[in-house]
């Protein structure tokens, strides 16, 4: 708060367009209050980042050193054997990483496509039943996911002619324990539809009318006008969906049975419960598993922050 007061004090001198005046003004701003702010923020930042640093440190320590007391922040015997062991151990961890990537990227792409189609029709088309369907979709936002959890499990198990099922959906496991089961129930996302729709409504109708006059059909309007103009909202949905799906745990836990199909979070969690002596591999796996989201965050930081404010203002 003192920074605000300080800011008003230096304002008159700041108006003078002489560069040398700017310097003392800036130095003056670093008053005890501002300094305290920096110290406080930095201390907090260290507290927030420390567990990560420790995780990375542990991932480069041999198993014996990890359990030594007192704990080490700097590895005594640095090694990459945890990482190499990760890919050579009898747990198919490389496969788990692939599964996670395949499933979360598939869901993200399919969600963007199908949900933006729905959003476009809700935003820019007029057809009987539109408002009813939109309201129905919105109402499901209130429904806790636990309600549809069990039926969806049974629906996946009963998909006919898959996983050993007969035409009536009996006899086998259907889409359970398959990529299909992980992907299909996650494509529809009312929140994404709502977010995209709210964004697309703002696109001026003149653009669409002009395209209609030029003879563009609705598919072209969707693909050539609405999609390019909705990029910020699409980026936000893509980032959130990927982030959400990359760490998905509950779905894979109840759907998957064979270890070959595990996603990374499921593999790591069950790995830890079954074997107490693989913490070195878990730490290495955690670093590998955390990296994609951190990379995505650094690349799309702007879209990330925009997306959150978008969700905050539209939601």
């Amino acid at each position, binding site marked *: 708060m003192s920074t605000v007061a300080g800011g008003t004090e230096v304002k008159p001198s700041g108006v003078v367009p002489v560069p040398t005046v700017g310097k003392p003004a800036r130095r003056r701003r670093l008053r005890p209050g501002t300094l305290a702010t920096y110290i406080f923020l930095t201390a907090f930042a260290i507290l*927030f980042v420390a567990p990560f640093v420790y995780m990375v440190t542990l991932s480069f320590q041999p198993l014996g050193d990890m359990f030594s007391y007192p704990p080490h922040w700097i590895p005594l015997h640095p090694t990459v054997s945890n990482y190499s062991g990760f890919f050579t151990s009898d747990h198919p961890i490389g496969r788990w990483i692939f599964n996670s990537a395949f499933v979360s990227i598939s869901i993200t792409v399919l969600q963007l496509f199908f949900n933006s189609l729905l959003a476009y029709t809700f935003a820019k088309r007029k057809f009987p039943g539109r408002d009813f369907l939109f309201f129905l979709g919105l109402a499901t936002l209130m429904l806790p996911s636990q*309600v549809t959890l069990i039926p969806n*499990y049974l*629906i996946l198990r009963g998909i006919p002619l898959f996983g050993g099922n007969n035409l009536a959906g009996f006899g086998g496991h259907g889409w359970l324990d398959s990529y299909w089961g992980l992907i299909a129930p996650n494509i529809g996302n009312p929140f994404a539809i709502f977010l995209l729709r709210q964004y697309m409504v703002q696109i001026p109708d003149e653009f669409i009318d002009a395209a209609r006059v030029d003879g563009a059909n609705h598919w072209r309007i969707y693909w050539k006008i609405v999609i390019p103009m909705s990029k910020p909202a699409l980026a936000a949905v893509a980032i959130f969906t990927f982030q959400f799906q990359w760490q998905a745990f509950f779905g894979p836990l109840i759907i998957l049975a064979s270890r070959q199909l595990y996603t990374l979070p499921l593999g*790591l969690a069950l790995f830890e419960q079954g074997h107490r002596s693989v913490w070195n591999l878990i730490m290495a796996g955690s670093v590998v598993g955390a990296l994609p989201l951190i990379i995505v965050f650094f690349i799309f930081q702007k879209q990330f922050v925009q997306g959150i404010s978008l969700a905050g203002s539209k*939601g």
Partner: protein
Amino acid sequence: MAQVTAPKQPITVTAPKRSITRQMRNEWTAYAMQLPGLLLFAVFTVYAVGAAAYLSFTNYDPVARSGDFVGWANYRAVLHDGTWWAAMGHTLYFTLGTMIPSMVIGLGLASLLNSKIRGLSFYRTAFYLPAITPLVIATLLWKWLYNGDYGLINYYLLRLHIIDTPIQFLADARWAMPAVILMQIWLSIGFNMVVYLAGLQAIPAELYEAAEVDGATAWQRMRRITIPMLWPTTIFLLVFQTILGMQTFDQIFVMTSGGPPGPGGATTTVTYYIYLNAFQYLKMGKASALAWTLFLVVFALSLIQFRWYVKQVER
């Protein structure tokens, strides 16, 4: 569109008919665009909700793949299930215990970052880092930090002479839930901070300038401008965190398995208990009744929050 059809209308008698066929064709493409999404919605949401309602009145056995209609028996069992209501309490404890501190700290950090501070993106990244860590990985990491024998937290508590003997955080019924909550606060501050920061930046600077002219103190500016202007943001976060809190599962599964002393113990949340009933005890009928009970509670909470919001806006 109107420009194209309008001049044609007076010329040909068939014009209204043509416009109807055109409209129908337009509608047809709208429905076609909706179809894939609607199909998924029909199966995995609409049908699933009906199935969940039906299941809750049966004693469906997923192994035998059959069940009998049992009337209200499941709901009566739920009413008298002490573990369920205890789980409700644990979930409320977890949700409030996480929500309040992480929102207050998030707002505090956001307002510090909103003053003219340098290194904004560095601090923002540091505070947001936990939020982009996959949940299972963060939980595994904290499980290690909490360990009684080699964990970092006990190590520092002992070295600072705050405690004399290590605390078995996750094996102690008094400490397990606070431990999970502390981790969750660390995880969720970043998101709250980013949302609040966006909210703060959307407040017009003129309001503060006018207040300053009127000689308002920092506290008055906070009370009269910042907090009222942030109401929509706050409500969004409250609703969002309540929904998330009700779904808490991964942390519990990985960190404590619902204990101590075990499943059904001190950290068993509603979602974890539903999971236990459906997929461990194989009582899918009862689990469905539990899920509907949860829906009622969530619905009531949302209503209260909404009415509160309306009241605040009206004021």
